[in-house]
């Protein structure tokens, strides 16, 4: 049994990637399965997807805890969760990054491939949907399927849903990634710090599906508990504000779904970039174009 775990963000196509990988394995005559796990269905939120490949029917439906292959679609996840947890010592990793494999630190030294999947996706698909590009790199490091099967799987899954042109563009992105994949070994210096979670006994759960303000096991819970979830890390574009143009209508402040636009005393605004997901609604509603969205998630 060969097990794969994908880490990505909502909208990057981790689920589709897992399904396509499973289909490539089936094209090779094997058995395979793929399934997602996510909490809130929101673009930018961390998601996982899993795949299993075997030579016989797969009965197990549990999540994958000790993958043979780790696929990370978003480099920023490396800093917010221990993505390599449980990766088998002889396992492999594929990371979407411009860096060399030796520059990546997964917390364990394993065979690692890197590929600039975001720029490939932008070039071939005009969108940062990196799933097909990264599958090219997966085909490069994994001998369970040929690049031909992978491209066939991409065309099958994307052609039916988005049409022939999209299928060809996605297969081309995968082919480009295949040739741009760098192989090596990553570093293992990063300590594994499990995310803090409050996991109370049934007796310690507050009665009545109701949670007051408080700190439990070092985690802020209840109203205001979302403060610790720095959703600004999801951002791939950042608002730029031209105060000169601003007419102080406050439509941006009113429309921001995260409430991260703050009113100053003089009715001008500022952004709390710790929480701005870069959705761009503020730029859309601004009547004088005082806001535009810049590429990139940095401040």
């Amino acid at each position, binding site marked *: 049994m060969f097990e794969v775990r994908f880490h990505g963000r909502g909208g990057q196509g981790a689920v589709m990637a897992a399904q396509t990988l499973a289909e490539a394995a089936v094209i090779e005559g094997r058995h395979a399965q793929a399934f997602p796990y996510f909490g809130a269905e929101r673009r930018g939120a961390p998601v996982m997807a899993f795949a299993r490949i075997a030579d016989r029917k797969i009965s197990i439906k549990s999540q994958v805890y000790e993958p043979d292959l780790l696929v990370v679609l978003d480099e920023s996840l490396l800093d917010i969760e221990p993505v390599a947890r449980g990766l088998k010592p002889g396992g492999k990793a594929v990371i979407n990054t411009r860096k060399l494999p030796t520059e990546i630190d997964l917390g364990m030294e394993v065979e690692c491939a890197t590929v600039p999947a975001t720029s490939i996706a932008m070039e071939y698909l005009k969108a940062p949907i990196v799933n097909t590009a990264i599958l090219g790199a997966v085909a490069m490091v994994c001998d369970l399927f040929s690049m031909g099967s992978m491209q066939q799987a991409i065309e099958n899954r994307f052609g039916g849903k988005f049409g022939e042109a999209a299928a060809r563009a996605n297969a081309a992105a995968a082919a480009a990634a295949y040739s741009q994949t760098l192989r090596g070994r990553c570093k293992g210096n990063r300590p594994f710090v499990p995310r803090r979670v409050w996991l109370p006994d049934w007796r310690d759960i507050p*009665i009545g599906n109701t949670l007051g303000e408080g700190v439990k096991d070092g985690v802020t819970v209840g109203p205001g508990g979302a403060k610790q979830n720095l959703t600004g890390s999801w951002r791939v574009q950042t608002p730029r504000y031209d105060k000169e143009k601003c007419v102080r209508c406050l439509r941006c402040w009113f429309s921001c779904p995260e409430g991260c636009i703050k009113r100053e005393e003089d009715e001008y605004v500022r952004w709390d970039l710790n929480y701005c997901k870069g959705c761009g609604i503020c730029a859309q509603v601004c009547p004088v174009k005082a806001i535009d969205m810049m590429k990139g998630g940095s401040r």
Partner: protein
Amino acid sequence: MVISGDHAVAHAAKLARTEVVPSFPITPQTLIVEQLAEFINDGELDADFIPADSEHSVMSMAIGASAGGVRVFTATASQGLALMHEMLYAVPQNRLPIVMANVNRSLGAASGIWVEYNDSMAERDSGWLQVYVEDNQEALDATLMAFRMAEDRRVLLPVMVCLDGFILSHTVERVEVPEQQEVDLFLPPFVPFNMLDPYEPKLINPIVGPEYAMEMRYQLDRAVDHSREVINEVDEEFSKLFGRRYGGLLDTYRMEDAEFAMLTLGTATGLAREVVDDLREEGKRAGLIKLRFMRPFPFKELCEVCDSLKALGVFDRSASFNGGGPVYTEVAAALCNVPTVVTGHVAGIGGRDITTEHMRGMYDAVERASRGEEVRSVTWHGLRGDME
């Protein structure tokens, strides 16, 4: 007073000083909320009466009002209860002590306005406590006790008082209506547990992931189980104040040396009492178990009562389809380690009248089983045509 079962329930809700009554009419329950509307209109009850656009809204309002910190009562039946289904499930997990009367009426197609328990039995896994009553006096008393049980800090769960449509709801009987001062001694003012309070913000009903839901469900499972103790205590206290005792989760009749017995719920119990008396006069060692609470289910208590019983018949006024009735399957599960032979007896479906002959037929079958004779596991009594 000579009043109907519905009016007995309305009197109980009034005596409990209910503060909010969201309501939607449905036969055979309408008399309850009509009577409450009258009490409010006449200044006898200080409560808000909220006519809703559906039962789904009724239960939503009940949830809001209860979380807002007031004592809430409502009533429904059949399709109305089914329409509440979604909201019913929110109440126990939120631990809101809402009391509701469900006047049992058959649900679904091939149904009418008459009694069958397939409406409330379908909600037995919702987390609501369910009590079934035998007569109008018990309808009143059980409703009063329901508030005490529901609001007890060890329970904090909603209670559904189930009474037979028409057979109780529209039948007048002599009912002792307690004085307000007596009830005030029994039922203190409502003190909310998790109140909506702008000065103390809380996260209520968030999405609950797999990492918490199981513990929360088990906590609810324990709360329902622990309510058994409180139900018995409240019954005891009620009997001290009002002189009427109901036995808590279940009651027994002439079970001392019984060899065979029926387990009944609702108004069939009264009929079974008569049949037991007849059988005893014939020298037969017949007994009767009256099941009061379907939730919490008296697993342990039943085993104790059936300890030396040879055969037990279980009455059901609804079917679970290809498995007998829901009470039968639960009793059979409760007694799986007891040598008592358990058989199921379905009768009175869709409000069909249950006669002394039907009940006698059930007892005869159970007596045969007690002598070691082969008896059908489930029998439909009063059915035209032989059973398959």
